[in-house]
């Protein structure tokens, strides 16, 4: 016993060091586990209000670029309005549409904190559960995908950016139906991504567009994710490794849309049931 105390008193600096490091790694592990709401993050009221202030200043710097982008998007949306189509039918039946259910609704939000320089990147949005945002909703812009909502407080929410080691998004070519998985590899820069699992018989060329598929419950189908930049086949492998140029520029996005998939829970429950049944057999 005496020896133990002697040992402790002689090495207490080292023991304190190990203790503090243990606390740190406990915090890291807790904060990294998916969906585990940590209390000390940028949804915290004090921190978020600091970021709101900073963001309200930096907004002015991006005003020109954002106006241009919004105008472009407005123009694009305007072309989709029924009023901008020429009506070729003569007789029209007006009916209450019971065949089409609304599947996605969108919530507009603004990024008030954003990182792209780490291996695991997160963002903070200026809207939270009060605006109807909930964890696991997808986040997109007019130009591509952004990520998935992670934590939500009353007025703020955090997003797991696509620029994250564990990101995996199902994508397909726009002009055919072959699909693969898009990941953010360790040698990808913040403007690139890697698409794997595209079989080698699939015809495509540099510059082809890839879009999201219906496999993902987070994003609507057909959202552009990027264009093919280069590709190769690993020796002994049966599939392409495609380097993609992301259509979202993660460094300067500021306005985003949060996607609310109204039928997600129904789909999830059904798929869970299927999984349980498979496990039972």
């Amino acid at each position, binding site marked *: 016993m005496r020896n133990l105390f002697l040992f402790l008193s002689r090495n207490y600096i080292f023991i304190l*060091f190990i203790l503090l490091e243990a*606390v740190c790694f406990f915090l890291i592990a807790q904060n990294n586990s998916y969906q585990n709401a940590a209390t000390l993050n940028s949804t915290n009221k004090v921190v978020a209000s600091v970021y709101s202030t900073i963001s309200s200043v930096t907004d002015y710097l991006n005003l020109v670029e954002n106006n241009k982008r919004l105008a472009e998007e407005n123009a694009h949306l305007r072309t989709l309005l029924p009023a901008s189509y020429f009506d070729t039918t003569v007789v029209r039946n007006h009916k209450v549409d019971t065949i089409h259910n609304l599947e996605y609704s969108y919530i507009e939000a603004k990024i008030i904190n954003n990182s792209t*320089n780490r291996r695991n990147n997160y963002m903070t949005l200026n809207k939270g559960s009060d605006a109807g945002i909930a964890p696991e909703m997808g986040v997109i812009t007019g130009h591509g995908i952004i990520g998935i909502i992670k934590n939500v407080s009353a007025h703020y929410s955090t997003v797991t950016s696509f620029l994250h080691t564990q990101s995996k998004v199902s994508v397909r070519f726009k002009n055919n139906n072959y699909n693969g998985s898009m990941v953010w590899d360790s040698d990808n820069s913040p403007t690139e991504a890697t698409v794997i699992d595209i079989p080698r018989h699939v015809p495509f060329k540099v510059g082809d567009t890839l879009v999201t598929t219906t496999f993902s419950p987070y994003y609507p189908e057909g959202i552009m994710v990027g264009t093919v930049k280069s590709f190769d086949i690993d020796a002994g492998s049966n599939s392409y490794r495609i380097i993609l140029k992301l259509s979202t520029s993660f460094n300067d996005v500021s306005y985003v849309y949060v996607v609310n998939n109204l039928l997600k829970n129904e789909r999830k429950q059904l798929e869970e049931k299927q999984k349980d049944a498979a496990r039972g057999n």
Partner: protein
Amino acid sequence: MLPEVIKSVLRFFLLILLQVVLLNKIRFAGYINPFVYPLFLLLLPVRIPKTLLLILAFITGISVDIFSDTLGMHAAASVFLGFMRPYIIKLLAPRDGYDSDAVISLKQMGILWMVYYLFISIFLHHLFLFYTEVFRFNDFGATFLRVCLSTITSVVIIFIILLLFDKTKVQR
């Protein structure tokens, strides 16, 4: 002149503010992010008790963490730096040792000493930080390159800060 304690407290807030508000938004060449907040730990007096140094390191790291959503990472790296600092100072000791009330500044220690001190300390800090962040040794080379480039950037910025605030004439 202000007493050393008040100076340290001021330095703490200024450096964390600088880090969070300005430097966390800077990305040289896309992904090089300079970190200057370790300077607070590096400028504490030479004879500060090791226990206090470790606890201050933890507080500094956690403060930066809360603002950058990386809970634990900067704290871990700072505590590591706090633990290593006495050894680094011992390694760089002049032949006749330090004065009992020695403070670390460009004026007292000289440029060469400061360059060695900053490079060793910041390198160790960044090494620990970046490998904690990646948490695997798969892309060892890529991470190591980031460590080296970030160390150089951080040291240059820290040196500029030191030159700006250490107004008294520098000895050689």
